């Protein structure tokens, strides 16, 4: 078969070495033009509105109060303190949420391997229901339907060491003189060493139940990845169920679980920004109030994005460290 003669000079539009560079140059040019166009508009519009980028307003007094704060705050303090208080609230919700969701998710994930069919069915149902309903809907459900329907005063729901009332959640703990004290009713008002707001309670329940379902799936997949023979080998060594899980299955399952957990932890941290729907003053809620007062939209967006990015990176760094610990060490 006669092949067509290859032309001595390859035309430039078929040159395999030149084309990639032309393509990249064209993409870079388009991106640069778009960015220049947008930035030019931004600067022109901000100048016209008298809102050119500055951070001096952060030092002005905020003038608004925050419903509850992990660090001390009042309206006379500057904006940056308000945003810091919001960040602290976010961190509190995220840390509590991570612990709760991990506990719930691990238990639910392990329950998939129970010999009890009803328990397995219940866990499957939990995962299927929770994952197919938007988190925001679940949060407002917890807040408006569950927590705001709680009775107040003497009628409040009382469990050992814990009282649930419309005015807040009261937990037993160490009092001011380091003595153990439970919730007590004083003149119709509950008092306890530890009081959590119902807003925080609703956010926490929502995050824990939602993320718990996803973590349950991660844990289930991790345990399912351990070969059946490992369970059999463990039981042939005379190990009980708990000892098999503890010494044989879990160390192997963790290698699969930890990277999945990383993803779930980061989305829990990001999801905590939905707190604004239930009135918990997290970073996003405070930022929204600040924007309404100052009109500093660009600065607020930069701060918000930076804060969540740092939070994500922090979680990722910790989880990657953990991942290195649980991986098989090969010679």
């Amino acid at each position: 078969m006669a092949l067509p003669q290859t032309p001595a000079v390859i035309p430039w539009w078929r040159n395999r070495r030149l084309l990639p560079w032309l393509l990249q140059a064209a993409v870079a040019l388009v991106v640069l033009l778009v960015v220049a166009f947008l930035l030019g508009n931004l600067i022109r519009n901000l100048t016209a509105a008298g809102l050119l980028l500055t951070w001096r307003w952060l030092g002005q007094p905020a003038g608004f109060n925050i419903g509850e704060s992990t660090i001390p705050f009042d309206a006379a303090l500057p904006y940056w303190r308000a945003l810091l208080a919001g960040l602290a609230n976010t961190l509190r919700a995220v840390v509590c949420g991570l612990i709760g969701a991990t506990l719930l998710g691990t238990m639910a994930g392990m329950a998939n391997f129970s010999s009890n069919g009803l328990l397995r069915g219940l866990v499957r149902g939990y995962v299927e229901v929770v994952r197919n309903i938007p988190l925001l809907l679940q949060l407002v459900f917890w807040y408006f339907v569950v927590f705001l329907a709680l009775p107040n005063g003497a009628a409040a729901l009382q469990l050992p060491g814990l009282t649930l009332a419309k005015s807040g959640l009261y937990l037993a703990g160490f009092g001011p003189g380091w003595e153990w004290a439970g919730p007590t009713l004083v003149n119709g008002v509950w008092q306890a060493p530890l009081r959590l707001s119902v807003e925080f309670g609703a956010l926490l329940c929502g995050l824990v139940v939602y993320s718990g379902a996803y973590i349950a799936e991660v844990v289930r997949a991790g345990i399912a990845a351990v070969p059946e023979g490992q369970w059999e080998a463990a039981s042939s060594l005379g190990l009980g169920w708990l000892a098999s899980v503890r010494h044989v299955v879990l160390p192997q399952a963790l290698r699969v679980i930890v990277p999945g957990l990383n993803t779930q932890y980061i989305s829990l941290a990001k999801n905590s920004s939905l707190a604004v729907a239930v009135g918990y003053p997290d970073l996003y809620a405070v930022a929204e109030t600040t924007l309404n007062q100052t009109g500093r939209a660009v600065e607020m967006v930069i701060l918000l994005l930076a804060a969540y990015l740092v939070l994500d990176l922090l979680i990722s760094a910790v989880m990657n460290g953990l991942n290195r610990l649980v991986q098989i060490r090969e010679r």
Partner: protein
Amino acid sequence: MAPSSPTPASPAAALAGRLRRDLFATPTDGLITLVLLGVIGGALTGLLRWAFGRADWAVIRLNSTLFAVGRYPLAQQWRLWLLLALFCGAAGLSWGLLRSQPRPDRQGRLWPPADRWACGLIVALALWTPWALELSASIQLRWAGLAALLLALRWLAGRLGQALSPRQGSWALRSLALLWPALYLIGMELISGGIGLARVPSSDWGGLLLTLLQASFAILLCFPLGVALALGRRSDLPLLRWGSVLYIEFVRGAPLITLLFLGQNILGFLLPGGLAPERVWRAAWVLTFFAAAYLAEAVRSGLAAVPKGQREAARSLGLGPLQTLRHVVLPQALRVALPVMVSQFISLLQDTTLLSLIGLLELLGTARAVMANPAFLGDYGEVYLTLAVLFWGCCTALGLGSRALEHRLDPRHTASAR
């Protein structure tokens, strides 16, 4: 491994045996079962007693139009009915044609059992929902008509599909792929008006209509964008790769609500005055760009799963890089990525609820607005439960559909059945 009984037992005895094995194998299991039965029974009776006793469902009944279409002008609502009728017609056609085409595992049966169940469900929903909502007789009639149209076209298309030759059949399936985008364009025209129809401003769109519009817009547009980003991320060209990585990681690092915040508050500054889109469209574009970053990761995992030999084989056949991508790599990659992509679409549908936080009146926003009305103050349980059931139904249906499609596209399955 489940032990199999040596002799075939009667169904009742088999059921009893299974129950004993599943629920009461050991004393601990029995205890767990009893406790769980108590808890589930208590919760269920409490819920039923609330739903049929104390709950006041008038809030749903009286606001059903608001939940469905928001403040869409009454005089123009015939356009939405027309769109719904077109949609039901197209769905019936597609369903019938797809089912009737002979495939290895199903010889083009007109009514497989699963379809009978689906039909029953459709008829039941079309008759029960308007009745339960106490809608007027004319609207009940319209619902029944829509269901009849859907099923009639499904039957007709099924019969037609069986009569077609294989070549005509594949031609029919290909024209289906054109029918849907065309329907989308017609739908947008019907909803917003403009050419020959009175304009309905996007600020009047609301409820389920707005939720579905936002979700479908973002799903359609994020797909090409996501595929492009995934290809960029796996490209050999450093500039494209790093640009894609930067975009994907930046968007995935931020909560959606901060991006919506960015869209609502900054977009006006970024574009010359007057060019910035309306609030509804700003949100739609933010959702699209957000979803594209997540979709890109799903597609990237699919691309990574295509064996290198496939590319080499395509090259040795003389296909160019673009042809290899189009005919060899992408079809395989997208099939692998399908389950993850569908779960991304499901979470996108759920994410539309966040629009209520920036003041748009989609389903959840409508719910908040309804409950600000003193007449319905405190009806949180009824409204939120209804929305939860609605979202759960849509998302579960999407998930089941994706599982069926995955099964259908699985080459191992098709090969073994042949």
